[in-house]
Each structure stands twice: as C-alpha cells, then as structure tokens.
C-alpha cells in the first residue's frame, strides 16, 4: 500500500478542480446534515414528549370510566366507598377521587359553559399542579363555596377586564363561589384530567350538597415506590372490574405511557433517519457522478500512470482515497450543518436542544461508508481501463 502517494495524488486532484470538489462536497454534506438533523430532531421531540410525563412523575396513575354519566344522584362509586381503596389496592400510595360535571359559570353578567370538577383536598398535590395566584383547595374547604379556576376561565375573566381574580365571585350551579386560587396551565399531553385547564374546581362535598350528585368520575393516584407497575395495574384492574360491572374501567399509568411513547418516538426517529438516509444516498450518488466524470476526464492521466508502472490497485487506491476525502470533509461540514439545523429548528420550536453522539457517529460512519461505496465503482472503472485505451484518450 502506498497510502501516502494516494493521498497526495487525491488531494492534488481535488484541489485542482475546486468547482467539481465543491459540488461533490455540497451533495455529501447536505446528505449527512439531513441524517444528523433528522435523527437529532427525532431524539429532541422524544425527550420533549417524555419530559411532560416525567414532570408528572412515573408513579402517576388514572382510573377512569367508572361512572355512569347519564345518571345523576349517587353513582357506581360514591365518595364514601373510596375509603376502602387503600385496603383493596395496597400498591397505591395516594389517591384522589374526583367528579366531573358541567355548569354555566356566570361572572359580572357574562356566562360561559364550563366543566366543574368536584375534588378532594389532596387533588392538587396528587396531580402536581402549580398555583399561579392564591392557594389551592384543601380539606378545610369541603362544603364551602370556594373554587379554584383553570387557565381558560382565567383568560375569559381577563378579557372582561378582571385582572385580580382572587376574591372575585362566580355563580356556579346558581350558587355564589369565591375564587381562592388560579392554577397554572398543566401540560396538555399528560394523563391529568383535561378539565383542570378548562374548568373550575370546587370541593367535592360542596358539589354533592348543592347538586345531589355523588359519582366518582375518575381517580388519580400515585403508586408506592418500587412496586411492579404491571402487577399493580392488574391488581387494581381486578378490584375495579368487580366494583364496576356495567363497563370496563380504564387504568392508565404514566410509566406504561412513557414506554409506549418511547416506542412511538423511536419509530419517529427511525423514520426521520430513513428520510435523512435517502438524502444521503442522493448525496452519495452525487459523489459517484462527480467521480465518474472525473475518471472520464482523466483517462489520459490514468494511461500515463499505467505507463509509468501504476498497477490497477494503485489507480483504484487513488480514486477511492479521493472519494473518501470528499466524504470525510463533506461529512465534517455535514455534521456541523446538521447540528446547526437541529439547533435552529429546536430554537424555533422552543424545544430543549441537545445533541447525542448517536447521530454524530451515524453521520461519520455513514459518510465513510458512502465514500467507500460510491467511490468504489468509479475507482474500479478507472482501474480496469486498458493502459493503451487510456493513453489514446484526449
């Protein structure tokens, strides 16, 4: 192997036709950049999606579809029967039953239709909600006409000019409630009851007293540390299947959802990676094209070298090194471009930018492979030229 010679000759020829070199570099670096940007974006989107669940906590769990919403009055599970849950479900560390109803909410003559959540004192804590103004509802609010509003009602009040909501009155179910707190917007894609953002929270017992409605719509809870999630879910499912005969209770846990999410997001990353690879192949074909043209243009040079005693593998080596160098530098530029692209998109989408080593290693590996793969054929073509034919070419 005369690698030093191949490198010298390859470098000379790349430098001697800068336009050709530039075009090849452009093709390959766009290809590599798209692989890296795509894979990075995939990973960033995945982290972004998982972050919302991680903030909620992997021990979070929701039990739903346990109420018959067509009925009013006492439901399948009234609040008082939930006191037996800790005994029945030992893996639950904490739980907060809640009821969802609907009412017109009137404020300063304006009225909106809104969800009304009847909640227990620990609902706020179990859901890890954050208070924006005022305070959350607690156990001492039970049976009192105090409420905490979500972001949607807060926004609507702001629109009618009420900026200091704490202490303001809302007419709910024709009863006057005092706003004691405003909760911050909870992230959309989490398992939390959607009504938190959309509606008003009032004490469960207050809801029961003024509407006569006592059916637990759902239960949010937290699992104990170190329990086997799927076993716990199975056990809880068994209990609720027994209590709720008419319908199938749903149990969702954050950890299972994160698992599914992970799979979906890995699929997304794979898909994006494939899209990137297609761009890379196009870039690689570009390199091959440039190399083939270069071989055709340099037939005479090849002939001279063969006359001077270059063996086939010397010619091949020189051209492969040329393709390899193109892909190496194209790869470096592509990595920079790809990281830049991923950063730009993350910035624009307000995602937390990070770059892992996977796309970089992938980019490097793939560009080297592309270089060798797409460099091989033109190099082989060059090497199999018969010396006399090459020499006769102009």
């Amino acid at each position: 192997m005369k690698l030093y010679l191949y490198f010298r000759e390859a470098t000379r020829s790349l430098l001697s036709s800068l336009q050709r070199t530039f075009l090849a570099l452009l093709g390959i670096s766009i290809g590599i950049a798209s692989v890296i940007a795509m894979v990075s974006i995939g990973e960033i989107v995945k982290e972004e999606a998982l972050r919302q669940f991680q903030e909620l906590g992997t021990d979070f769990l929701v039990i739903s579809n346990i109420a018959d919403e067509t009925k009013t009055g006492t439901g399948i599970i009234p609040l008082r029967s939930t006191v037996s849950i800790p005994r029945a479900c030992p893996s639950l560390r904490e739980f907060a039953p809640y009821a969802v109803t609907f009412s017109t909410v009137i404020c300063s003559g304006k009225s909106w239709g809104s969800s009304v959540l009847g909640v227990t004192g620990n609902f706020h804590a179990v859901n890890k909600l954050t208070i924006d103004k005022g305070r959350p509802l607690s156990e001492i609010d039970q049976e009192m006409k105090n409420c905490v509003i979500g972001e949607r009602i807060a926004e609507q009040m702001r629109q009618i000019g009420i900026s200091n909501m704490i202490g303001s009155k809302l007419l709910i179910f024709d009863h006057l409630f005092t706003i004691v707190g405003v909760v911050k917007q909870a992230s959309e894609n989490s398992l939390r009851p959607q009504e938190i953002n959309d509606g008003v929270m009032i004490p469960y017992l207050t809801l029961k007293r003024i509407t006569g409605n006592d059916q637990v719509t759902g239960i949010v809870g937290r699992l104990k540390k170190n329990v086997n999630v799927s076993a716990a879910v199975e056990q809880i499912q068994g209990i609720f299947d027994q209590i709720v005969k008419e319908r199938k209770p749903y149990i969702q846990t954050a950890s299972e959802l994160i698992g599914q999410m992970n799979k979906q997001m890995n699929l997304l990353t794979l898909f994006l990676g494939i899209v990137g690879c297609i761009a890379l192949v196009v870039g690689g074909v570009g390199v091959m094209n440039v190399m083939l043209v270069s071989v055709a243009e340099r037939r005479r040079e090849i002939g001279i070298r063969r006359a001077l005693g270059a063996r086939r593998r010397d010619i091949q080596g020189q051209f492969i090194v040329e393709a390899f160098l193109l892909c190496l530098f194209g790869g470096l530029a592509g990595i920079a471009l790809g990281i830049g692209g991923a950063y730009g998109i993350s910035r624009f989408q307000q995602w937390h930018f990070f770059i892992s080593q996977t796309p970089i290693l992938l980019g490097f590996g793939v560009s080297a492979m592309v270089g060798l793969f797409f460099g091989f054929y033109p190099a082989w073509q060059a090497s199999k030229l018969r010396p006399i034919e090459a020499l006769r070419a102009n």
Partner: protein
Amino acid sequence: MTAETRATPVIELKGIKKTFRVGVLDLPILKGIDLSINKGEMTAITGTSGGGKSTLMNIIGLLDEPTAGAYSFEGREVINLDDDELSSIRNKKIGFVFQQFNLLPRLSAAENVAMPLLYRGESIGKSDATARTFLEKVGMGDRADHNPMELSGGQQQRVAIARALAGNPSIILADEPTGALDTKVGQEIMDLFLRLNKEDGITIVMITHDPRIAAQCPKRFNICDGLIKSESEAVS
C-alpha cells in the same frame, strides 16, 4: 560488452501480428514483425503514417497485446503475463517518452520524474533526490519545481526523458519524441538521446518521421504495410 549480454536481446519479437476490429471489419495492422534489440543499441523505427509504428511500440512497451506472435523481454516470455507483472515490468524496465510529453499537469517536474519510483514503493524523500539528479542530467536542474505548464515543449520533453531514465530501465521507448518540437529543439533532444546512448550505454528505440533524425541512429527499421521492409545497420 560481454558475450552473455549480447546473447540475450533486450527485446525479441517473432511473428508479431496485430489486428484491430473496427465494426465488422478486421484491420490487420501488423502482419508478422520479427525484431530484436540488443543492449546498448540505439534504434530508429520509420515508416509511413498509419503503418503501425505506434502500434508496434505499444506492444513493445507492454501497453497493448499482440493478436499473435512471441515476445520475450530480456529472455522472459511476456505474452500472457498478468496485469500486475506487466505493470511491474513497465515500472522497472521500461521508460516511455511520448510525442505529447505526457507529463502529469498537477505535479512539478521533480514530482513527475519521481513518479515511477513512487509506484515502485520508494519513499518520497529518496525518489525526490533521484529525480533531481536526473533533471540535472538532462539540463533541467534549475526547473525542478516548475509545473509542466511553465515549461516550453523542449523543456517538457527533457523532463519526460528524465522521468523515463529515473527508474534505471533496460530500455527507453520514444514515440516521435521530436514530433511536437521545431527542428532546432528537436535536434537538441536528439543530441540528448545520442549522448545518453553513447555515454551511459542506454538502450533506446525511437519512432521518427524525420529522416534527418533517423539518419543519426546506428540501426534503423522501416515499417511498411505491417511488415519490416528494410533494416539497416550502420557499421560503427
């Protein structure tokens, strides 16, 4: 010159034929060439244009294969050798000089001259030193770092001759080395060949159109219609 070296010619051709296929037509160009060239000889090959001189030279230089015939190079049968072995003989035993000089345009004069040595596996440093000695020898020592583009035709041909000599080959094959040069410069190149032959005993085969150049070679072949028509050897 010892009896032994005289006994084995550098080049020995017997019944060399070459037929080109053009479409459905077979064009016989060489129709049975017998030729032998001994060490230290300076030979001119002349003949009509299109008569097959270059074709013969390419076969001698192992750049092309004959359709039929026997060829031994320094006593070794070279028909049917594989490509690597042919490359190795070209690299170590044959020096080419072309009408169009055929220097590699991106390399300096010294780098061009060093090329055969590099393909042989010599280091860059060592081959560069050798290249410079040979450039000195052809009177191009002061142009070693110039690019071919910066040199005149005659100067380029001197560099090409240095390149052909640098590998210390058994034979120099020159296809119309003066063909692209004016008479005066052509004669200078011819003088260089004559000097190399006389002083260093270099074996040279040269194709030429120019009777004045051919007349200066002690041995001459005339190729006509694919055969050697006349052969003359000056008594020296």
